[in-house]
C-alpha cells in the first residue's frame, strides 16, 4: 500500500490560497487547518506570486472548456499529477488580503493593487476559482499597545468569519466543478471512453472533497466499470502497455472504492467487491512474455486489500457476528481474514517469480540492450511509460514499443529479490493465523515460508519452521504432507551436516506408512527432496540410511567437502522414548511373566521388538537394562560375529545368544529367564540395539498392557498382533515386577504392662531378638498414633497442667537395662520427637537379642496406638541393600489414676454474714466465697480411680506465687502425714485451714498437688516403675468478702442428760455502723430452754454482743440444739447456722475420758462428714 502516492491513500482536503499580508498567514493557515473538516492553506506573500503558482496552461484547460483536441483526451486515461495538483496547487478559493492603508494609500499603491487584482482574476477565472477580498484595517502606528489589541481583535474576528466563509466557498467550488463535469457525463458529451473514465474519476474526487462518499463511490464504480469495458475496445496503445495501463487505472479506482467502503465500515460489500475485482481480472493474463506483470499485479491487489482489511478490521466488530449478518453463506469467514489475502499475495508473487525467470531465460539474448531501459520513465498518464529523450535542454517523452517496454519491465523485475518479499508476506499471514489459533492454515504458510527459506539457502530458519509443521502433521497423521516436510528436513540436516538429525529424519521417513495408491499419485507430483512417497522410495532411503549406519557411506557435507561418517570417533546414539516419532522405527515391549516373585527365585521375561521400516534388518546385539543393573543382560545375534564392541561389560553381564535378531513388522519375541537377588521393584528400563560397530538405538521399554497405540496412521499391511504370543500376557503384561523381600528372621517384642496413668512416664520394654538373621544397620521406628483419630496434641491447649500441649508424649528411650541409659541410651537415640522416634539398633549376631525401654507420658486419658517397626539388613556388606522390615503395634490405654476434688467449709459454729451469699447477685458465678480474716477450711480429697493400689506420698496446696502466699495463709491442720496406701476406689482427705488476710476481691489459692507412686509390691527395686508422680489440680479462685456481722454460737462440747448448760450466741459487728439484728430462736424438742425466743439486738460498731440461754437436755444422744435465725435489718439478710453445726451430743450420764482427745476426734469426724 505504501507504494501508492500519498494523495491516493488519504481522503482529499479542500485547498484555499491566501495572498498578501504575509504576517497573518501563519495564524490563518493554522486556524483553517484546525477546522473540522480541515482546510489546507496555500500562503503567498503577495498576489503577483499566484500567477506563478497556477500557470494557466492551455493544454491543461480541457477541464474548463471542452477540449476540441481529442488526442489529448485519448492520450491516456488519468493524468498522473491531476489529483496531486488539485490537492496541493489549485485552490478552491483565493483570498486576497490588503491592508487598509494600501487601499486608502497613495494612488501608486492603489494602481499597483488594481493591476495585481486584474491579473489575479485573469488567472483565477480560467479555473473559476472563487476570489475573496479581505481588507485588513490597521490603525496609525502611534500607540502600539492599543493598536496591537485592535489588530488582535480584528484578526480574530476576521479569522472566525473567514473559516466558515472559506469552508462553504470551497464546497461550492468543488460542487460546481463536480456538477459541470457530471453534466458532461450525463449528456455523454465526451469524445472518448478515456474521457468518460476521467470525468467519473474527477467527479468522484470532487465529491470526496465535499466528503460526499456516496456520490464518490458511485462515480468511482462507474469509472471502474468503464475501464473494464475498455479492455476489449481500446486500441490506443500497443497491446501490452494498453493492458498495463488499464489494470493500473483499475487498480487505483478499485483501491479508492475499497478504501471508501472499508472506512464506511461496509466490510462485506468491500469483500464482495474485491471478489468481483479479482474474478474479472484474474484471467486477463495478457501476452505470455508479459505474464509476470500480471502475476505481480495480482499479488499487489491481494497485498493491498489485505492491508486495507487489516487496518480497518481493527475497527470493526467481531468477524463471526459479521458472518452471521451475511444472508447468503457464500461469503465464508476466511474471506474476512487478512491472513488469507497475504497468503494469496504470496502465492501470486511466486507465480510472478517463476514466470519472470522463464521470461528472463528466454530473453537472455536481449540483455545487452538493457541500458536502454534506464531512460524509461513513467509518463504523464497513469500506468503509462515513455522513454525520456533529451534534446538540448528540453526533454520529450517518446512512447515505447511493447518490446522496449518488456525489456524495461524485466529489468525492473530483476532488481527485486522476490523470495524475501514472499517470505515477508507469508510471515504476516502465518503470524495472524497463529494469533487466531488457526493452526492448520498457519502450518501451510509455515511450510511455504520454510520452502522459501530452503530455496534461498537459509537452512536454520527453514529447519525450525519445518519442524513446527512436521509436529502438527505427525500429530494428525497426515502422512503425505509429513513425508514432504521430512524430506526437506532431511535435506536441511544433510546440508548442515548434522548426521544425527539426518539419520533420524531418514529413519522416520523410511518407516512412514505411505499408502501405495497415494504413492502412485505422488509420483505425479513435482515432489520435494523426499522424492515420491512410495514403497520403492522408502526402501531406497532405508538402504541409504543403513549404508550410513554401517559406516560405508558418508555424508558429503557442503561446508567441508570431507564427508563425515559414522565411525569410532563419532559414534551415533539414538534415543526412542514413548513420544518419539521414531517409535515406528523400533518398538520394544517387555513383559514379566509374573507380577510378584520371591527373592532368589527366577522368572521369565518376554521382550518383543517391532519395526516398521520397509526392509527387515538384523540387529547385532541387544542389551536389556533394568533398574537393578545386576539383572542387565545382553543378547547377541549369533549370525553376526560380534566385533570388538561391548566386550568391556561382557564380564559383568550375562550374555545370551539368539539364532537371529532380524526386525520386521512382525513381532520378534524373545523370552529369557531372569533371577533378581534384590527385593523391591524390578523394572526393565530400556532395550538397546546395536547395529554395526558405531550405531546404537536406545529404546525405552514399554509394558504390553499399557502400550500406547502407534501414531494415528495404521499399517494396513499387517493384521495387528499382540506383542506376546500369550494373549493373557498381552493384556496384563507389565515391564516391571515386584520382588518380595525375604521374610524376617528376627523377633520384635513389645512387653507392655497394664494401663498407663496420666502423669506418670510409662515404660514399655522393647526387645529385638534375632533368630537366624544377623541384624545390620538395625533401626527402630517408633510412632504414636491416636486411636480415636483426633490428634495426639491440641494446639490450643489452655490449662496450665500440661504446659506443653501434648496429650501423649514420647519422652525418650533408654538402653537395655544393666547399662544405665543416661550415657548409653542417649547416643543411640537418633531422634525423639513427641510422637515419633528413630532409634538405631546395634549389630546383633544370630541368637543375640537387644532391648530398650520406651518412656511415654500421658497428659490426658486416651488410648494410643504404638507402632514399632524394625528395619535391618541381614547382610553386612552394604547399608544400601534392601532392608527387611518387621512391624509391631500395641494399643495402650491412658487412664487417670488419682481424682482430686475439694470443697470449702466455714469455721465451726461461726457464721459470718456474707450478703453476697445470702442474697446472691444474679450474675454472680458459682465460686466459693470466703470471709476475710476469718478461718475457713479447705478439704482436698484424692480418690484412687485406677485398679491398682497406689502410694500416696503427700497432699499439699501449693500457691503459684508468693504474694498469694502472703495474702492468705494456707496450712494443713495437723502435721505431715506418712505415706498412705490407697486401694482402688478408696478416697483420702486432707484438711487445710485458710485465712485470707489482704482484701482482694478474688483469691487464687493455687494447686492441689498430690504426689503418689504405683505400689510396686513390697521390695522397692530401683526401676523407674515406682517413680514419683505428681498430680496437680488447680483450685478455682474464691471470692473474698469482709463479713459485717459474724454470729458465732458457743456451747460446751457436750452435755449431760438433765443438767443444764448455757448456750451463747455471739454477735460481732465488724463494721463502723450500728447493726440492728433480729434473732428468732426455734424450739428444740430435746431441750428445754429459757429466754426470749424473738429478740432484736443492737450491736455497736466494732463491738460484740452476747446472748446467753440456759438449756436442759431432755434426751441423750446427738441432739439438735434450738435453731436460730439472725436477720440483719441493714442488709435485710437472714441467715442460719447449718444444722450440723447446731447439734450437740448428750451423754446419759457423765463420762470419764480425755475430753480434748474426744473433742479433737469429734472435730475431725464432724469436719469429715
Amino acid at each position, binding site marked *: 500500500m505504501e507504494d501508492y502516492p500519498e494523495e491516493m491513500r488519504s481522503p482529499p482536503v479542500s485547498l484555499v490560497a491566501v495572498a498578501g499580508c504575509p504576517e497573518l498567514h501563519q495564524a490563518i493557515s493554522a486556524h483553517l487547518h484546525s477546522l473540522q473538516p480541515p482546510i489546507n492553506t496555500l500562503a503567498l506573500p503577495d498576489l503577483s506570486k499566484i500567477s506563478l503558482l497556477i500557470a494557466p496552461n492551455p493544454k491543461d484547460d480541457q477541464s474548463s472548456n471542452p477540449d476540441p483536441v481529442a488526442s489529448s483526451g485519448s492520450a491516456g486515461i488519468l493524468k498522473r499529477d491531476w489529483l496531486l495538483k488539485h490537492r496541493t496547487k489549485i485552490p478552491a478559493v483565493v483570498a486576497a488580503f490588503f491592508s487598509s492603508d494600501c487601499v486608502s494609500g497613495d494612488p501608486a499603491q492603489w494602481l499597483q493593487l488594481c493591476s495585481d487584482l486584474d491579473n489575479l482574476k485573469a488567472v483565477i477565472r480560467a479555473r473559476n476559482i472563487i476570489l475573496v477580498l479581505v481588507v485588513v484595517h490597521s490603525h496609525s502606528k502611534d500607540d502600539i499597545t492599543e493598536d496591537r489589541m485592535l489588530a488582535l481583535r480584528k484578526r480574530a474576528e476576521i479569522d472566525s468569519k473567514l473559516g466558515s466563509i472559506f469552508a462553504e466557498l470551497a464546497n461550492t467550488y468543488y460542487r460546481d466543478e463536480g456538477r459541470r463535469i457530471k453534466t458532461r457525463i450525463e449528456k455523454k458529451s465526451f469524445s472518448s471512453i478515456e474521457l468518460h473514465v476521467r470525468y467519473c474519476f474527477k467527479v468522484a474526487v470532487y465529491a470526496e472533497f465535499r466528503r460526499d462518499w456516496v456520490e464518490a463511490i458511485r462515480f468511482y464504480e462507474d469509472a471502474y466499470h468503464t475501464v473494464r469495458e475498455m479492455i476489449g475496445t481500446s486500441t490506443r496503445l500497443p497491446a501490452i502497455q494498453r493492458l498495463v495501463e488499464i489494470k493500473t487505472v483499475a487498480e487505483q479506482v478499485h483501491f479508492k472504492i475499497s478504501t471508501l467502503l472499508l472506512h464506511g465500515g461496509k466490510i462485506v460489500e468491500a469483500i464482495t467487491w474485491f471478489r468481483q475485482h479479482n474474478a474479472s481480472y484474474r484471467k486477463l493474463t495478457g501476452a505470455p512474455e508479459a505474464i509476470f506483470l500480471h502475476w505481480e499485479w495480482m499479488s499487489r491487489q491481494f497485498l493491498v486489500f489485505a492491508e486495507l482489511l487489516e487496518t480497518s478490521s481493527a475497527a470493526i466488530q467481531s468477524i463471526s457476528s459479521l458472518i452471521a449478518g451475511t444472508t447468503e453463506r457464500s461469503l465464508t469467514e476466511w474471506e474476512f481474514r487478512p491472513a488469507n489475502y497475504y497468503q494469496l499475495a504470496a502465492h501470486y508473487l511466486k507465480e510472478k517469480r517463476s514466470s519472470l525467470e522463464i521470461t528472463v531465460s528466454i530473453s537472455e539474448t536481449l540483455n545487452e540492450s538493457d541500458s536502454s531501459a534506464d531512460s524509461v520513465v513513467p509518463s504523464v498518464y497513469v500506468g503509462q511509460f515513455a522513454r525520456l529523450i533529451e534534446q538540448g535542454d528540453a526533454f520529450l517523452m517518446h512512447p515505447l514499443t511493447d518490446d522496449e517496454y518488456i525489456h524495461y519491465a524485466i529489468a525492473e523485475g530483476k532488481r527485486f529479490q522476490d523470495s524475501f518479499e514472499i517470505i515477508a508476506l507469508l510471515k504476516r499471514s502465518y503470524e495472524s493465523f497463529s494469533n487466531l489459533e488457526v493452526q492448520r492454515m498457519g502450518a*501451510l504458510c509455515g511450510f511455504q515460508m520454510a520452502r522459501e527459506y530452503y530455496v534461498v539457502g537459509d537452512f536454520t530458519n527453514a529447519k525450525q519452521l519445518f519442524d513446527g509443521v512436521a509436529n502438527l502433521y505427525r500429530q494428525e497423521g497426515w502422512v503425505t504432507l509429513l513425508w514432504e516436510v521430512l524430506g526437506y528436513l532431511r535435506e536441511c540436516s544433510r546440508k548442515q551436516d548434522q548426521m544425527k538429525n539426518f539419520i533420524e529424519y531418514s529413519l522416520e521417513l523410511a518407516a512412514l506408512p505411505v*499408502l501405495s495408491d497415494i504413492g502412485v499419485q505422488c509420483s505425479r507430483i513435482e515432489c520435494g527432496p523426499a522424492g515420491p512417497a512410495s514403497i520403492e522410495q522408502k526402501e531406497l532411503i532405508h538402504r541409504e540410511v543403513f549404508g550410513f549406519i554401517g559406516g560405508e557411506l558418508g555424508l558429503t557435507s557442503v561446508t567441508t567437502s570431507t564427508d563425515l561418517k559414522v565411525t569410532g570417533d563419532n559414534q551415533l546414539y539414538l534415543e526412542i522414548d514413548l513420544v518419539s516419532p521414531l517409535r515406528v522405527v523400533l518398538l520394544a515391549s517387555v513383559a514379566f511373566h509374573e507380577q510378584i516373585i520371591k527373592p532368589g527365585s527366577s522368572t521369565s521375561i518376554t521382550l518383543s521388538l517391532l519395526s516398521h521400516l520397509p526392509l527387515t534388518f538384523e540387529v547385532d546385539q541387544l542389551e536389556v537394562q533394568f533398574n537393578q543393573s545386576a539383572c542387565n543382560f545382553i543378547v547377541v545375534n549369533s549370525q553376526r560375529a560380534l566385533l570388538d564392541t561391548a566386550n568391556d561389560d561382557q564380564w559383568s553381564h550375562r550374555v545370551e545368544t539368539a539364532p537371529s535378531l532380524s526386525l520386521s513388522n512382525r513381532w520378534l519375541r524373545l523370552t529369557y529367564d531372569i533371577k533378581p537377588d534384590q527385593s523391591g521393584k524390578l523394572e526393565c528400563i530400556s532395550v538397546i540395539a546395536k547395529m554395526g560397530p558405531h550405531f546404537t538405538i536406545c529404546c525405552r521399554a514399554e509394558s504390553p498392557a499399557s502400550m500406547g497405540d502407534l501414531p*494415528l*496412521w495404521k499399517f*494396513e499391511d499387517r493384521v495387528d498382533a499382540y506383542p506376546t504370543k500369550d494373549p493373557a500376557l498381552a493384556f496384563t503384561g507389565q515391564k516391571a515386577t515386584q520382588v518380595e523381600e525375604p521374610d524376617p528372621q528376627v523377633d520384635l517384642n513389645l512387653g507392655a504392662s497394664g494401663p498407663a496413668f496420666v502423669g506418670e512416664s510409662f515404660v514399655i520394654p522393647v526387645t529385638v531378638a534375632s533368630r537366624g538373621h544377623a541384624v545390620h544397620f538395625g533401626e527402630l521406628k517408633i510412632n504414636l498414633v491416636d486411636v480415636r483419630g483426633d490428634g495426639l496434641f491440641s494446639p490450643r491447649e489452655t490449662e496450665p497442667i500440661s504446659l506443653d500441649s501434648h496429650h501423649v508424649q514420647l519422652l525418650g528411650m533408654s538402653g537395655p537395662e544393666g547399662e544405665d541409659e543416661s550415657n548409653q541410651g542417649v547416643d543411640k537415640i537418633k531422634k525423639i520427637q513427641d510422637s515419633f522416634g528413630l532409634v538405631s539398633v546395634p549389630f546383633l549376631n544370630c541368637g543375640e537379642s537387644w532391648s530398650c525401654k520406651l518412656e511415654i507420658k500421658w497428659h490426658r486419658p486416651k488410648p494410643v496406638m504404638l507402632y514399632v517397626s524394625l528395619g535391618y539388613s541381614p547382610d553386612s556388606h552394604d547399608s544400601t541393600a534392601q532392608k527387611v522390615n518387621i512391624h509391631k503395634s500395641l494399643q495402650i490405654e491412658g487412664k487417670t489414676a488419682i481424682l482430686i476434688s475439694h470443697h470449702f467449709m466455714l469455721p465451726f459454729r461461726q457464721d459470718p454474714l456474707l450478703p453476697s451469699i445470702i442474697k446472691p447477685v444474679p450474675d454472680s458465678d458459682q465460686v466459693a466465697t470466703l470471709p476475710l480474716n476469718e478461718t475457713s477450711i479447705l478439704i482436698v480429697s484424692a480418690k484412687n480411680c485406677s485398679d491398682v493400689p497406689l502410694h500416696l506420698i503427700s497432699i499439699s496446696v501449693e500457691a503459684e506465687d508468693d504474694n498469694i502466699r502472703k495474702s492468705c495463709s494456707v496450712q494443713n491442720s495437723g502435721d505431715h502425714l506418712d505415706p498412705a496406701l490407697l486401694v482402688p476406689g478408696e478416697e483420702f482427705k486432707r484438711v487445710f485451714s485458710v485465712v485470707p488476710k489482704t482484701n482482694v476481691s478474688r483469691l487464687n489459692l493455687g494447686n492441689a498437688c498430690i504426689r503418689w507412686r504405683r505400689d510396686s509390691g513390697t521390695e522397692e527395686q530401683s526401676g523407674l516403675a515406682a517413680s514419683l508422680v505428681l498430680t496437680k489440680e488447680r483450685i478455682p479462685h474464691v471470692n473474698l468478702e469482709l463479713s459485717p456481722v459474724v454470729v458465732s454460737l458457743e456451747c460446751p462440747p457436750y452435755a449431760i442428760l438433765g443438767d443444764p448448760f448455757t448456750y451463747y450466741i455471739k454477735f460481732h459487728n465488724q463494721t463502723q455502723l450500728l447493726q440492728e439484728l433480729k434473732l428468732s430462736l426455734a424450739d428444740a424438742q430435746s431441750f428445754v430452754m429459757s429466754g426470749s425466743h424473738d429478740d432484736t439486738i443492737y450491736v455497736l460498731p466494732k463491738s460484740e454482743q452476747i446472748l446467753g440461754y440456759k438449756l436442759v437436755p431432755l434426751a441423750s444422744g446427738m441432739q439438735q440444739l434450738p435453731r436460730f435465725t439472725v436477720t440483719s435489718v441493714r442488709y435485710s439478710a437472714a441467715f442460719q447456722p447449718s444444722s450440723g453445726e447446731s447439734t450437740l451430743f448428750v451423754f446419759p450420764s457423765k463420762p470419764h475420758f480425755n475430753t480434748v482427745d474426744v473433742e479433737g476426734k469429734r472435730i475431725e469426724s464432724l469436719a469429715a462428714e
Partner: protein
Amino acid sequence: MIVCVAVVGHQNNPLYIESFTDADDALKLHHIVHCSLDVVDEQVNNPKKSGPTLNETFLGLLYPTENYKVYGYFTNTKVKFILVTTDLDVRDTDVRNFFRRFHAAYVDAVSNPFHVPGKKITSKTFEKG
C-alpha cells in the same frame, strides 16, 4: 468437476484422500483439505455459525480458494468428509446428494471386517463429474 474427496477421522487424521486430477497438484489438494479442517473445527465448535440447521451433517461451503470450492460434511461418528471441486457454481443439493452417496459408500467400506482405519476403497465415488 470434483478434484478431491477426503475422509478425515475424529482425530483429524486422514482416513482416505483421493484426488482426481492428472495435474500435479495432489499435494496441494492435501494441503487444502487439511486446512479446511480448521473451518470445520470452527463451525462445529460454535455451531451457531454452522449450516442452516443446527447439527446438520452437511456443513456447506467451507471456503473458496482461488480455483476451488471446498465443502464439508460431518457425521455423527465424528468423521469428516471433505469435497474439493472446481466448478464454481455448484448447487448445495447436488453436493448434499454426493455426500449422502459418499457416506453410504463409506459405511459399507468400514463394514469390511478387515477394514483398518486408514485405507479405503470407495471406488464408486467417481461419479458426478
